[in-house]
């Protein structure tokens, strides 16, 4: 098993975000459809469809998750955040019917992460969203685990293609466990190997030289 000395900051679990995690920063860059419930003076240039000086009340626009989260207040009405369509009733029935057929990479790729973040905004549909997220994960987990534990020395790109980011990380750790076990069985566990970081650097150097 290769030991890695670079351990990136883990993304947060559930509704939590981890401040330094690169994954969480990219997750919160996802755009959400919102409707303003108050005017934003002198920021009209953020909304490209109009050339007014202000953003008037009731404008429909797309804002990144971090901005919506920062502006949203429970007591005061500043923003109304709408659900992205994969979390709406129509898609929820699809997920509940068979979670294995959907391509979560195309719909996300942060399907679970963004879904959990949506729970920060008060909406009557929240319990249903949470339930669907959980059931989707449970429904797909068996298959993810099974394929990651049994694809040895194979091209895994077809298996990983349709997975969400969270599932991909699980798949990867399953694979590293499988590879570690196999190399132990073959008596290679005590073999010293070159660091993958060094090897990657060398590959890139060769690629740089070639025109």
């Amino acid at each position: 098993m290769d030991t890695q000395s670079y351990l990136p900051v883990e993304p947060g679990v559930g509704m939590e975000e981890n401040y330094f995690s690169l994954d969480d920063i990219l997750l919160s860059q996802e755009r959400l459809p919102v409707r303003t419930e108050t005017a934003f003076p002198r920021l009209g240039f953020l909304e490209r469809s109009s050339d007014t000086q202000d953003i008037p009340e009731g404008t429909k626009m797309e804002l990144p998750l971090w901005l919506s989260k920062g502006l949203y207040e429970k007591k005061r009405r500043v923003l109304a955040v709408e659900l992205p369509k994969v979390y709406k009733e129509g898609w929820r029935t699809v997920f509940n019917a068979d979670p294995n057929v959907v391509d979560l990479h195309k719909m996300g790729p942060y399907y679970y992460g963004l879904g959990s973040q949506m729970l920060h905004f008060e909406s009557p549909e929240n319990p249903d969203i949470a339930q669907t997220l959980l059931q989707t994960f449970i429904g797909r987990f068996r298959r993810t685990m099974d394929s990651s534990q049994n694809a040895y020395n194979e091209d895994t790109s077809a298996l990983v293609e349709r997975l969400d980011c969270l599932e991909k990380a699980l798949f990867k750790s399953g694979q590293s466990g499988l590879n570690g076990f196999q190399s132990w069985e073959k008596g290679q566990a005590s073999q010293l190997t070159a660091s993958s970081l060094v090897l990657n650097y060398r590959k890139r150097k060769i690629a740089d030289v070639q025109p």
Partner: protein
Amino acid sequence: MFCEKAAEMIRDLQRMNEGQLPAFNEDGLRQVLQEMESLYEQNQTDVNEAKAEGRADLIPSIKLRHTCLLRNQRCVSAYLYDRLLRIRALRWEYGSVLPANVRFHMCAEELQWFSHYKKSLASFMRSLGSDGLDVTQDVKPPKSLYIQVRCVKDHGEFEIDDGTVILLKKNSQHFLPRWKCEQLIRQGVLEHVMS
């Protein structure tokens, strides 16, 4: 939209997988800091106006800009912190001397941080036991003191403990003390041959 540049920096860093260190994005960092400065100035004028003329309608805009400032701060801190994690990993993978092409990607402050890290790690290792212990050695438990190695590329002359000098030539095989070659294996100069 605000904060696009900061997100782009994070995306570029994330794309370099397995802990590789991309070139320090000095230009990007400067652009983000400039954006923060102009956001701050706009907020200052709006705050003064809101206070002086009692214009409460400006408050949502002030809050929006403030959120952007915090976001930029988060992106920049995460960028710098993640790079430090990668640089720290380099010390363990490459040893205390970094190749020029890796060092080339670091900025002056990062080089300084690296040398501080090197020093504190070295003084920690010296403080262990009676005469120090190299904690970067024997990452995998050793089975024997000597191992069979094959050279992957020409490395020149190499001196072992008893004073013998051996020539590490491509494709030559040697029987060497394990602790002497562990680092060279990690750097991809030697290959551990298992019988």
